């Protein structure tokens, strides 16, 4: 799942080098540089890729503190 999320991040950022640079501990805002519009785009892509639905109202920015934490969050979402 993590590799697929990295590919989606790279797609949102339009930066192929991210595939090799993003690690478990990368902060999605501080290290990857996703802004909030890009994060919404990433979430929409993640929803599509994994058939899940994110609740935007309750989404915590702490889920973005590392790729591993974001992956765990996505993995914990119920499949549609």
């Amino acid at each position, binding site marked *: 799942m993590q590799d697929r999320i990295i590919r989606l991040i790279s797609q949102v950022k339009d930066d192929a080098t991210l595939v090799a640079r993003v690690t478990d501990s990368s902060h999605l*805002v*501080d*290290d990857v*540089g996703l802004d909030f519009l890009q*994060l*919404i*785009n990433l979430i929409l892509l993640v929803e*599509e890729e994994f058939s899940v639905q994110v609740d935007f109202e309750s*989404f915590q*920015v702490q889920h973005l503190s590392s790729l591993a934490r974001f992956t765990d969050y996505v993995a914990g979402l119920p499949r549609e």
Partner: protein
Amino acid sequence: MTARIFCGTFEAEAYWRETDLARLPSLMDRNASRVVEAMDEMLFAFCDASDCLVTARRMDDAHTEYLHAIGFAFHRNQFDLVGSADEDTSEAGGTSAPSIFQRMDDERFSQQLAAFLPEGARLEPFAVLPGASQVAQRYGLAAAFPPQEVIRRVNTKGYALEMRERLEIPNPGVVVEEVRSLSETGAALLCRGPFMVKDDYGVSGKGNQVIETARALQRIVRYVAGQVSSGKRVRFVLEPYLAKRSDFSCQFRIEEGGDVTVISVQELLNNGLAFGASCSASPELLEMLDRVGYLNLIERMGSLMHADGYHGDVCVDSMILQAGELAPLVEINARKSMSLIKHAVDRYLATYGRLGRLSYVSTVNHGRIDFPGVLELLDREELLFTANRASGVLPLTSRTMCVGETARAEEPNRGKLYLTTVSKTPEEHGSVMGALERVLEKCGVRVTH
């Protein structure tokens, strides 16, 4: 000369927006809202020696001393207009933080403000939000603002579409007011390529969504439909997502009597859909705009806005498309703007024969930032702009870097430093930014990308 009072809330659209409108998906980010609130410090750039700057939080003393030392003279409030910590909570995508006018109208600060604000001075806000006239009345300030319903109207994306029609320029946008039309019009646009959904009161970096797939459109439709079923109203602008070569903006002022004065044209280096940097328009761009009659169009736009009851500041966003075609009217912001601040700093720098570029760096650090220490180190490294230095950094804000310090101790502090890089040539900008990053690193502040 009449003294002026500068103050402002930069997330103006959130205060004009009707509360019963459905929203696009957004994420709650209280920290980002606190950064935006502290951007009011930048309004010092408009001040003359007799003017007053009112900021929600008292400006940093060392920063103010520096600005005074390099020639920006202004009076500022020596007290916070912030009460308990629960005041600055924000909802997802919206805001419940008080605007500067709600703060200035708060009984707790009225005595100090009454002593600080010279009676008869003219109120010059960044944006004329609800409560501006009330504040002017309370403190005996001069103000002549258009009615709020006019200000609201001219700031909507729907009004920009109407304006394109009236100016007889291409208008690829359409307003949708039902979930069904969002879905159907969206699907039709998607057949021709990606398109944008814009909140009627969206600003760059917030309230706009690019839709590239049918699945993403369905998700947005579902999200909006959920809000409609709980009583919200639909009003979005849909338009093709146009591949652009560059962004620029034009700042102008409409006088109460209807005269329109073009102030400046600034090129924008945006990060996607959000503000990145503002720099002076190149001679090539100005020559092209002159050739196609862009400024005449701006003057006609100003006259039409005046006929609709508006007067005051305006910033129009424009762009040049990939094929070289001009899109003269992307959005209308009937308020002051970052580019107008840039222009004000430029006027100051011109006296030294220097060029400026307004931008920011996103920062992260642990613990408290020693802002006076940052200024001191910038100075020691000969990077802090002063009259006798050819290039350097002119920090425009300080509190925007420190907003997270009051939040949870275990979380790092995330902020932004707004600044002007000063140089003799545009090429020097990159090296100045690199040097700034190294100085901040020495102060324990990491610049994030």
